[in-house]
């Protein structure tokens, strides 16, 4: 079973193999901005590789040194070194799912 880490409405799923990412960041990276509260999920790490989806949201992460996930309303989470898929919580509506706002 893949290990998962959850902070509020964001879920990180560890991937079995390292991934190649198209973009890099150092220091910190905003994973998601809460549309209602305005509080952001921010990843702090020495080296961050990441991919974005069609909506320009972070969808995959490569953290060779691991990282720390912080949010004003949630306790921090330490992510071990590895690669992760990033998923946002969604909500059902008639016909199609919609994203949940944190």
């Amino acid at each position, binding site marked *: 079973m893949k290990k998962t880490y959850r902070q509020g409405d964001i879920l990180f799923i560890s991937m079995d193999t390292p991934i190649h990412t198209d973009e890099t960041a150092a220091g910190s990276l905003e994973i998601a901005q809460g549309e209602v509260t305005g509080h952001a999920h921010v990843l702090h790490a020495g080296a961050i590789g990441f991919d974005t989806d069609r909506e320009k949201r972070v969808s995959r992460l490569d953290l060779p040194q691991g990282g720390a996930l912080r949010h004003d309303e949630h306790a921090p989470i330490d992510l071990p070194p590895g690669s992760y898929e990033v998923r946002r919580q*969604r909500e059902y509506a008639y016909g199609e799912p919609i994203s949940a706002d944190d």
Partner: protein
Amino acid sequence: MVPAGGRHVPGRPGCGGGCRQALLRLRGIPWHHADRPVGEFVPGVRPHGPLHGSRSRLARALQLSEDNKVCGPGQLARPDLLTSCGILEDFPPEIRARLIAQAGAENVARGAGAGAVLEVDDTELRHQLVEAYGAKDLIFDSEVFSKTVKDDFGTLYRVEVPGDEDICVVKVLNATPEPDGTFQDYFLRVPPYVQTAREAVAWTFDMEEGYAPVAQT
């Protein structure tokens, strides 16, 4: 009193005395009045298809609404009270849409009440009003949720809607305590096929199985 040609729905709030009570409760709220011929009382709306059928249906719906005291001669009917009486769906779709747009879908749903929204026969209209009301509020306001399933991941609430899919919401606790030490809960609507709170929360993250976070805050 059930109007001629109208439907009597046992237990539906708003029919007869209920509508009068609702009118009294809502007295004072401005409403539209228009001394216009039937079929022309909503500006900009032109019926499609056979004119006779549309006019006949509109005239019948207006008569029903007058009989139910939710509008008088020459007045525009209130869509929330029409819903509580179960006759909004008797209006032609374009008229109905215009009435809802003018009043606001949430005002219509809330004004009609959760029970009345769940008893709307027209599927499209019911779905619109359910979403405008909000699934979580609808479930608790209607007080008709038939099943609750609780596990370590939360509580799943379900309302069975005859002839339609169930309405389900899952209540989950925020894993991080508030400053006062309490845990805030929140609700998410989930598909009708989920059976447990764990399955419901897993669905919200598009996971079919194996949802067991090693850390969550």
